[in-house]
């Protein structure tokens, strides 16, 4: 199929070393009218420096309140192929592993009903199938779900949880991130598909403090693997590293707590002062390994800057063992959602609510015990509340 529109600006973006999204759209344009017209519309955006998408309307599949982002062009007559251009969020498997068979199956469905364009993956983690019309949605869902695929989250709901690959290929994983992520996803199917929260709620699970899933910045609940006990040390491997690495400079001097020493070719760690930052382990993976008692820290609250400024998640549970059936964990999530449901305003994320109501109030509300790990430093101004039982009458 030849070119439907001249795209001199986009053509510039086919040049260069990095793979080109324009080339990708062109490949799809060989198959679908969606992609052909997308090229035209996008070229116009490039020319005018303006988006040509309208505010999305609500579209979806029967029985679900989310999983599809409605999208309409504001130039439907000029580019009829993208008059509708809805996104289908397909819940990815934990860890983003695929067999080629499975991938081909999903792509086949998408070639049949959609634009032939995808995002692998969306920022939240979904397989994002990019561009179809309202009529095709039910068909796509039937084809997908009959083959074992389901939609991810959107709207004021639990969003698709995601994780780093954890124990599947990483020596540092302190928890089974993929198992937990799958468990959370399955456990809360209703909360994901039928938006009933004050606003969105995201989970991200990292196997260790390296946080390869950016959980601390992008998840209302961030679960980060960690340990108790002493870091494992193999002195012979330390000796090997000393041949290629300036251990004093790269490890000892960069340890944030200054709890390491390297003297007489022997590495020692004062584990009681280690904050488990992972720096030394990451640089000397053959020599050092996380301590023996494994679990996770749970942090709450991160989100993008709208409205009161970006948040990072903060510690609410310093240490929790995370093993099936994860009862304690699910109970906690339940309490948090209940408290949010009771007090949260419309479009108020959990982190913003806690900030508004006060962290101590939240802790009381969900029955967690105050712990110094929850704060970087105590309050500075001597204004604090007391309960009736603290007062002498």
């Amino acid at each position: 199929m030849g070119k439907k529109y001249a795209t001199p600006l986009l053509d510039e973006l086919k040049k260069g070393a990095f793979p080109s999204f324009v080339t990708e759209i062109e490949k799809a344009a060989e198959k679908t009218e969606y992609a052909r017209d997308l090229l035209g519309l996008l070229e116009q955006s490039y020319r005018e420096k303006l988006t040509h998408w309208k505010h999305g309307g609500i579209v979806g599949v029967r029985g679900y309140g989310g999983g599809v982002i409605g999208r309409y062009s504001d130039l439907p007559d000029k580019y009829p192929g993208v008059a509708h251009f809805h996104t289908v969020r397909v819940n990815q498997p934990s860890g983003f592993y695929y067999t080629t068979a499975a991938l081909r199956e999903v792509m086949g469905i998408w070639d049949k009903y959609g634009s032939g364009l995808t995002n692998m993956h969306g920022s939240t983690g979904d397989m994002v199938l990019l561009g179809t019309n309202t009529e095709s949605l039910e068909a796509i869902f039937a084809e997908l779900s009959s083959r074992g695929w389901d939609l991810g989250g959107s709207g004021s709901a639990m969003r698709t949880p995601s994780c780093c690959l954890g124990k599947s290929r990483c020596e540092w994983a302190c928890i089974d991130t993929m198992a937990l992520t799958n468990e959370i996803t399955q456990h809360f199917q209703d909360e994901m598909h039928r938006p009933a929260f004050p606003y969105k709620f995201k989970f991200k699970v990292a196997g260790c403090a390296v946080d390869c899933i950016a959980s601390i910045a992008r998840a209302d609940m961030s679960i980060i693997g960690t340990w108790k006990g002493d870091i494992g040390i193999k002195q012979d491997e330390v000796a090997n590293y000393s041949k290629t690495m300036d251990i004093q400079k790269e490890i000892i001097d960069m340890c944030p707590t200054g709890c390491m020493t390297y003297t007489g070719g022997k590495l020692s760690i004062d584990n009681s002062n280690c904050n488990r930052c992972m720096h030394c382990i990451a640089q000397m993976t053959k020599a050092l390994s996380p301590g023996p008692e494994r679990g996770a820290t749970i942090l709450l609250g991160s989100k993008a800057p709208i409205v009161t400024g970006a948040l990072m998640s903060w510690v609410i549970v310093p240490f929790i063992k995370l093993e099936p059936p994860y009862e304690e964990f699910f109970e906690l999530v339940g309490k948090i959602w209940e408290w949010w449901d009771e007090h949260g305003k419309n479009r108020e994320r959990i982190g913003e609510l806690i900030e508004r109501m006060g962290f101590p109030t939240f802790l009381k509300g969900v029955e967690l015990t105050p712990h110094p790990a929850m704060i970087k430093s105590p309050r500075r101004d001597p204004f604090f509340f007391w309960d009736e039982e603290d007062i002498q009458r």
Partner: protein
Amino acid sequence: MAELPQRQTDIGPPHYEKFLPPVIKKNYGQWSYHEVLSHGHMVHTAKSGDKIWTVRVASPRLLSTTTIYEMCDVADKYCGGHLRFTTRNNVEFLVSDEKNVTPLMEDLKKRGFLLGGIGDGISNIVHTQGWVHCHSAATDASGLVKAMMDEFADYFTKTSLPARVRIAVACCVNMCGAVHCSDIALVGVHKTPPRINAETLKNQCEIPSTISSCPTTAISPDPKTKSVKIKLEKCMYCGNCYSVCPSMPIADPVNDGIAIVVGGKVSNLRSNPKFSKLAIPWIPNNPPRWPEVVAAVKTIIDTYKAGAKKHERVGEWVERIGWEKFFALTGFEFKAQHIDNFTFARETFRTTSSFKW
């Protein structure tokens, strides 16, 4: 259209175990160490002695099914039909048999895939929809990413930096990318207030929620037009009202542009996770290749590379030398916009007489 198969609901995604290569299933949770062999490949060794090689290639993230089929073909040939995507949208080919590694890498190169992204360099840019799909976009995302990664491709494929440099792009301040905690990030910003379409607003928007959407309380009811009005000097162009009410479009081709923030991170290594901070408040949108933006990012990377210690992330380097030095070394102009006047402004003011000339 043929009869549709029986739909199911609430089944969730397929269980990941179905997709794991056998060597991973066998050594699940039993990995011992890894070795980075090049920016394009690495090997993980299990306690059992088993190994898995990972070959990573770049992806524009916006992928056609055509390309995905091609990746599947490659994975079938060398990887027993196994591949995965990374959290930064690269593609990883998982090889259980050492002898397949080199042929795989050769084949990928021949097909034009770009190998890289592992270790201390610039991996793929986390980004968002932009003009490709979002009504909210103040800039495009994919085009910016392409322009930058073309410039920095060597840092993806072969050249190392003192530490990982994580770049992100968000096409508006909703920041669907990990912009707020990235080493370097671009975010599409507006510079002019929304324009009110009083006619359509009446029907399209709920007035109370429109008013309450504004973080600066710039919006108030306008009884005259049965719509709303904006106190212009209070508006910080965040576009949150437009998210809630389509009759308040804020896009402005001439004044929309790109802000650059730097110094964020999410890892806990050495220093705590950090927010990115404003380096340049506005650069004009100049598609298709945004040369001014690319040049500014290059300045940051060059300055960082020249000044940072090994293992030091951008934010760690900047905090060590101080922001006043960052501005001096990059030559970026320091403007009123750099000074915080939002929620936590006070905490950013210099409450010490110690700073560098």
